[in-house]
């Protein structure tokens, strides 16, 4: 027919099966922050410790044979725990608005009217934050390991420390999962990005402050459990340096983190509900 209908045309292309929703959400979630210059600066800044350590490894492996520069398991341990500062900032920058902005702009209705499930939504949002956090913890750590191998020209560093790769992976994963799940739960509690950010900052800083004061006063390290941050550091130290003398404390530390994660998952389950969609 010579004159084609300029109006609405039906879609003839193919349609993917469901179940991919979480990946779509994660991928799109990463695009927005990467477009902001401030965030790129933050990411770059988060990689500066990597550069410092890389130089240290270079010197250790070549010119100066002194013990100070030679890489040991401890260098990776300190690197990961130093990165917690950037984990904190990136978690707030990317994570605070993940659900809060959707709640404020009523986007939840749009998401859940699509063929995706609530768990696709939560999973996708978690993955967005987790990928950024991994980019400043696990990835630089493994790159450092690779550099160490390249500079030393042999695999024996890895062979001497068989537990190093699993330790780095486990520690980084703990850091990423804890920060991502907690931030996402707090983000789902409010409609304002700023309030969620303040909640997270308050939780981390205030708990840390309270813990140092109480531990300082009562000399009893059990107070560490009230601060997720310090509990995590304790566990990471245990991962790298082997089980501590006070094994009971390690057990309760792990229990505390697991409890926190469960609480966050429950919050997410309750706050991201289909029924209060379609206001």
């Amino acid at each position: 027919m010579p004159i084609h209908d300029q109006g609405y045309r039906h879609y003839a292309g193919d349609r993917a099966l469901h179940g991919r929703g979480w990946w779509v959400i994660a991928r799109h979630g990463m695009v927005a922050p990467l477009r902001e210059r401030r965030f790129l600066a933050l990411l770059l800044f988060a990689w500066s410790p990597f550069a410092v350590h890389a130089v240290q490894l270079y010197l250790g492996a070549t010119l100066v044979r002194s013990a100070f520069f030679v890489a040991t398991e401890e260098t990776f341990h300190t690197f990961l725990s130093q990165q917690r500062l950037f984990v904190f900032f990136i978690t707030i920058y990317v994570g605070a608005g993940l659900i809060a902005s959707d709640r404020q702009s009523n986007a939840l209705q749009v998401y859940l009217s699509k063929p995706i499930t609530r768990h696709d939504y939560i999973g996708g949002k978690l993955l967005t934050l987790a990928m950024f956090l991994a980019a400043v913890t696990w990835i630089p750590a493994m790159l450092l390991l690779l550099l160490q191998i390249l500079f030393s020209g042999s695999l024996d560093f890895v062979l001497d420390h068989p537990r190093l790769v699993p330790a780095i992976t486990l520690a980084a994963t703990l850091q990423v999962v804890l920060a991502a799940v907690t931030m996402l739960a707090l983000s789902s509690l409010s409609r304002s990005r700023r309030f969620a950010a303040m909640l997270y900052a308050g939780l981390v800083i205030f708990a840390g402050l309270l813990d140092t004061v109480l531990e300082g006063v009562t000399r009893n390290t059990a107070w560490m459990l009230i601060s997720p941050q310090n509990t995590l550091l304790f566990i990471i130290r245990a991962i790298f340096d082997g089980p501590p003398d006070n094994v009971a404390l390690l057990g309760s530390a792990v229990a505390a983190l697991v409890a926190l994660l469960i609480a966050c998952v429950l919050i997410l389950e309750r706050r991201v509900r289909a029924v209060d969609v379609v206001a």
Partner: protein
Amino acid sequence: MSATRRMLEITLGDMLWGRRAVFMAIAAGVPVLLAVVLRVALASGSATVVVNGSRLSTETMFGTAITLLYLRFIVPALGVYYGTSMIADEVEDKTITYLFVRPMRRGAIVLGKYLAYLVCVLAAVLPSAALVFFIMVPFANMGPLVDTFVRDLEQLAVGIAAYGALFVLAGVTFKRPLVGGLIFVFGWEPIASALPGYVGQLTVAHYLQAGTAGMLGLVLASAAAVLLAMRTIEHREYVLEQ
């Protein structure tokens, strides 16, 4: 100024509800909790506080608690949170329109809200500080410390008034005052007090510690700030964007 009194009543009702009340309860409750825990720990003798050699007496600890916890953290935080949100929140929520079309000077809105803030925060912080005092300081040697305790309370009261007034003014003038306020209180004030020369004087905390003359100056400055805020809200146009 009956309009101010009415605004005070409305805001009081508004303050004791929801997020604001929770925030205030935490701010007043946590130090008391802390004091109780410390007292129990010390009483059971399980832990002695040893700082550079000498056993710290609870009174000095109370002194540090007042300055560190209250003056540097709780009072400024409450001042920033309530001061900036008083007007800025209503403008952002667009509920300010209902108040602007009432037969009263707009300044009464600011004054009413500021007085409500003063009443609520004083009623929360001062008793909390007193409680911490009674918990921490053993009854025996409470006598000589009473006047220093009263001076501490004065410091707190003036601090509450000053931070409140400063951030009411900020709240009326700027669009997003909260972030700036937080940076001023937790970024600028600690740094400035460490820097040499006059820089230290560009903070509220400095005048709080500068004896009665400093505090008097602060009270006058607070009054001036509130009056300026009242004038600003009357002359400024609030275009509530769509």
